[in-house]
């Protein structure tokens, strides 16, 4: 059994504990089980909380290595400071056994089922209140649908117009190169019109609105949830769904199809610019080609898609907004989730509707 005599410096404070701790560790590097370490505090006259933490840490280290630690020549003042700040870390807790693969799978499945049932419950609730509010004037907030429509629709006009124009422009440009080789320049009009009306117009508009308005709805609801505003509404006897969600639902149902019409028109205009300037097609033939290629079915496709996308954006924003917990961080998290989920479901719905309309002619 060996004995190591270590002399502590005059001060052990935040400014030097890191270096002193490294030195102490170095000094006991060669010590073996059962050896004695004597810490001489004789010179030490300045100690702060970091110094005490270092001594506690050194003590734990000695215990781990089964070394006997003796502190000597500590003054009364130093003793008081040590007593004040002394804290021995609890022995490491026993962790619960890690769940097995099947347990984890079951937990995931159960959680997914929970989310699904909550989502369906919320959707049915919003639908119910949307129908009831339509017939019951008292449940509607005066002017709220208009206000929300302006916020969701009017303010989004410039950005959606610009994006639609660029999409139509690029579509025409990319297809023009190919069609020109076959002398089929005029079919650029057909391609742009069908692509914009039945696919790109509704999809791009929905993605833009999900990013712009879906996020703002989710953040608004989430903020109201974490600041107990929703609880306040409930205790006043007001159901937050008809009061907050239904006007937004109506506004989305109203504005998204209108924005899509605008996106379609501007997108086709973008294509027309390429047709006129690059492919030398006259404006009138281009216009006639667009009108002739668009069928009743294409108009129905974009309408059905727009209405479906409106519902998806609203339900996703409401679902995630109502799930918010904590503070600002919780609001940020659900807002991100709402945007990602609504864009995902919009694309899924677009694919499903695309498939359905490919095989089925609308009956109405």
């Amino acid at each position, binding site marked *: 059994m060996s004995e190591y005599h270590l002399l502590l410096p005059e001060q052990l404070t*935040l400014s030097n*504990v*890191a270096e002193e*701790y490294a030195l102490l560790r170095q000094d006991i590097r060669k010590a073996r089980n059962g050896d004695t370490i004597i810490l001489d505090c004789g010179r030490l006259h300045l100690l*702060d*909380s*970091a110094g*005490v*933490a*270092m001594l*506690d*840490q050194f003590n734990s280290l000695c215990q781990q290595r089964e070394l006997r630690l003796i502190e000597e020549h500590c003054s009364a003042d130093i003793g008081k400071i040590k007593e*004040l*700040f002394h*804290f021995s*870390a609890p022995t490491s807790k026993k962790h619960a056994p890690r769940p097995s693969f099947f347990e984890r799978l079951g937990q995931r499945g159960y959680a997914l089922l929970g989310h699904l049932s909550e989502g369906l419950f919320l959707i049915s609730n919003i639908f119910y209140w949307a129908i009831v509010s339509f017939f019951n004037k008292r449940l509607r907030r005066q002017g709220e649908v208009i206000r929300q429509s302006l916020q969701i629709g009017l303010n989004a006009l410039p950005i959606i117009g610009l994006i639609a124009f660029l999409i139509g422009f690029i579509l025409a440009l990319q297809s023009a190169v190919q069609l020109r080789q076959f002398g089929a320049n005029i079919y650029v009009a057909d391609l742009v019109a069908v692509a914009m009306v039945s696919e790109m117009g509704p999809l791009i508009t929905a993605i833009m609105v999900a990013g712009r308005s879906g996020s703002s709805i989710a953040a608004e609801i989430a903020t109201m949830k974490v600041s107990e505003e929703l609880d306040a509404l409930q205790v006043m006897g007001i159901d937050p769904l008809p009061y907050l969600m239904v006007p937004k639902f109506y506004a989305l149902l109203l504005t998204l199809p209108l924005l899509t019409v605008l996106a379609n028109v501007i997108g086709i205009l973008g294509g027309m610019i390429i047709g006129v300037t690059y492919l030398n097609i006259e404006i009138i033939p281009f216009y006639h080609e667009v009108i002739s290629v668009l069928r009743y079915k294409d108009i129905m496709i974009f309408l059905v898609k727009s209405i479906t996308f409106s519902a998806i954006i609203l339900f996703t924003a409401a679902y995630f907004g109502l799930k918010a*917990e*904590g*503070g*600002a*961080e*919780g609001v940020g998290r659900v807002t991100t989730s709402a945007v990602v989920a609504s864009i995902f479901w919009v694309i899924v719905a677009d694919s499903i509707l695309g498939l359905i309309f490919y095989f089925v002619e609308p009956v109405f």
Partner: protein
Amino acid sequence: MKEPLINATHLNGGYGQRLVLHDINLHILPNTITAILGTSGCGKTTLLKHLIGLLPPMEGTVRFLGEDLFQSDEKELNRLRNKMGVLFQNGALLNSLPVSENLAIPFEQHTNLPREMIEQLVRQKLHLVGLSSAYDLLPSQLSGGMRKRAALARAIALDPLILFADEPNAGLDPVTAKSLDQLLLSLKVRLNITVVLVTHEIISIKRIAEHVIYLHEGRILFDGSLSAALNSTIEPVQNFFTSD
């Protein structure tokens, strides 16, 4: 006589062009508990922001340890700020981080301590404020009183010379408020920390304050000991203390 820790002279302060504080002259002596009080909107929090170097004065100076806070460069100001601890009204804990990470921030940013020692210090500070069990919790999982205690633990992380507390008892029940007062008092006694409270909680002031600065419409109306404040004949001060 002891050198004051903080000295504000001819301080005019406020936000933008809006003057809130007029010709403030005060000094905070070491190892005392000073309460800055007054009715709502009198400029208490604005004064606190000037004293901790967050808001530059329109005129006048604020000196901490003899150095002008607003003449110091960023590095120097940060060195001075390390000697201050601030307990904000709502705790101002970072909600995305667990309590332990919140407390570790000052150590990670201002020291080169190894990770295990930072962990030891974090546990030590939490133990000191009676919150050992909150180590892994998120601030949103804490009650109002616990959040204040966690914020206090963060404020005293680097063993500051002075602790500023903005409305420490606001929104707390009387029992929690009393225990927080006792904690502040014990920090002053055991760690020799100077405490500056911004408050309008009369019970709390009577319980722990030694020195009182009374603000009225942005001006200091009274500056003296607690007993002198309680016996003051100045009408707003008298009204304030007789309103409980």
